């Protein structure tokens, strides 16, 4: 594999299509998306539901494969990788935060946070120590032995942030992380993301909420699987139109 050069974009999508064949009609969830995201950026991908932003995130996160096009992550051709190599990428390079938190209900907070470390092969003792540190960072160390259902939504999302950080990922992918939260807790979660960005991590935030998106340094707006805007968050073009939203 090619050596990753500093001047290369961390994430490079070129002419990516994702086409779902449903009977007669072909749905273009992504319709020729090309984009570069550099190290340390805080990018919001916005769009109405069905615009393809979730598909875009799934592909960037190596959770899904495009129908055609190319995708390079840190200089490496993701589409040429086998399942095992992609699992390693998800384990070490990527960190996910989901709208529905997606904590495993039967595991306690520590065990949830430990997932990435578990699959990285870290010893149990070390995993536990580090998961406690991470929970400490999100202010939930005292609840380490609780299960997710004993926590509020905001607390669960903070656990999810701690979990996303467990593998020391370069990229944090957050899919509507504030979507299920009230605005106060939402701001709190966003605060954590900004903090992580300040530490040098690349943040990719998926949202349909303009107020949230404006917190990012750069907005990529998708409509019907195409990029219709890519630039500063203060442009009127960046926002999702109210009628489209409704």
């Amino acid at each position, binding site marked *: 594999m090619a050596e990753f050069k500093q001047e290369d974009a961390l994430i490079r999508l070129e002419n990516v299509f994702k086409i779902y064949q449903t009977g007669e009609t072909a749905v273009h969830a992504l319709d020729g998306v090309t984009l570069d995201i550099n190290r340390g950026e805080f990018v919001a991908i916005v769009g109405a539901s069905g615009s393809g932003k979730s598909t875009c995130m799934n592909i960037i996160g190596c959770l899904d494969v495009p129908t055609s096009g190319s995708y390079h992550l840190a200089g490496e051709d993701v589409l040429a990788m086998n399942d095992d190599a992609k699992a*390693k990428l998800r384990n070490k390079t990527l960190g996910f935060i989901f709208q529905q938190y997606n904590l495993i209900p*039967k595991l306690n907070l520590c065990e949830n946070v430990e*997932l990435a470390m578990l699959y990285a092969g870290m010893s149990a003792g070390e995993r536990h120590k580090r998961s406690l540190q991470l929970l400490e960072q999100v202010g939930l160390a005292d609840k380490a032995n609780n299960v997710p259902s004993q926590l509020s939504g905001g607390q669960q999302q903070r656990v999810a942030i701690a979990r996303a950080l467990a593998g020391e990922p370069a990229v944090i992918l957050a899919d509507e992380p504030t979507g299920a939260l009230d605005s106060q807790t939402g701001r709190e979660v966003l605060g954590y993301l900004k903090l992580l960005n300040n530490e040098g991590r690349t943040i990719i935030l998926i949202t349909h909420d303009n107020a949230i998106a404006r917190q990012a340094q750069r907005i990529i707006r998708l409509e019907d699987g195409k990029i219709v805007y890519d630039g500063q968050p203060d442009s009127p073009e960046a926002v999702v139109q109210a009628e489209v939203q409704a």
Partner: protein
Amino acid sequence: MDIKHALGVALRNLQANKIRCAQMLLGMVIGVASAVVILYMGSNLMQGVSDFYSAYSPSLMYMGVYTSVEKSPRVTVGDMEGLIASSEYITAVSPLVSVEDCNLRYNGETLADAQIKGVSEQFLQMKPACQAAAGRFLQPLDISRRQKVCVIGSAVAEELLGCQNFEDALGQTLKIRGENFTVIGVLAEIQPDLEKGNYESYIPYTTAKQLTGEIIAPLQEDYYLDIYYVNLNSVDNIINGRDTVRALLAEVSGRPYGETTGLFSLSTRTSQKYDRECVMGLVGKLLGVSGIVLLVGGVGIMNVMLAAVSERRREIGIRKAFGANNPDIRRQFMLEAFYTSGFGALLGVLIGMPAGWLVCQFMGSVPIGYAGELMINPDLLDLSSLLWPAVAASAAALLLGVLFGYLPARKAEQLEIVDCMRE
């Protein structure tokens, strides 16, 4: 994939759904428990078989001549004893005359359990356990003179004569069918005594024949008898010994050699082998049944695991999103199946060990081949004889668990992350 992590997840899933857990484990538990009982019983019976035969010479052949068939061979003692000289395989011959329905009486006391057998002095070679602890065994002169002498079992000496010291029994007079018999020897105690050998007493076969009141020839060589013990020079010559006897029977009965098979029955160490096979067959059939139960248990685990995989799609998706590769997921579910069947095996063993013991306490005896009613020895309860059935049955359950866990585990690893996370 961490083994401890998988164990924790497996236990929590078992705990969370108790009815499903019971459904999943029932087959395994019953299968393992029954296998433990059967294997324990089987090893007990095997022990019984070897104990039964240990009293006899390993190269003993027992021959019964069928006297009720047409042109039945009339084999005399002389014919049979002649084989010792003419055959290189046969080293000793003794007739066996059982004195049926007869009590032993001493000073007005009666011993009902006594068995009285008429044999020749050569019988000692065939049943080395008949060594006299006091006095002597029968001798040729006792036979030829039809002496009213007897060699008694140790239990007879103790219970009927009340002798702690066997020497005291010598010279005492017993009554057999109203006739007085002098005790000339007491046999050493047989341990363990599964066929009541300690209650047996031996008298000369000539005397026994006289007791039964049958008219007999003046010379003992001319006695026609039905049952003979034949001792061979080696266990390996059982076939040769049998053929020698067959040739004699063909000669005596005037039938062609090939038509002698219906004239006699033979049992020997081959009968021990046969009896072992009987036990094996019995155990095998029973094990087959518990094997089927185990198999059903395995299918139960598979079904429940398959359901669990569908239910836990999201969990699988999350695990994959955080770096689990396909083998990690497969291992997790296979470990869960392994732990579950292990849990089932443990329960099965906990039920099966006491159950096996109980069964052997109350079962009494089992009819097995030539050994006849073989007593199950309830004292044969050392931990090791219960332990290996437990280990074997558990191993089978664990193996099945892993085999049947494979399909659900494959299904789990093949799930696509996006499909898992969709709903």
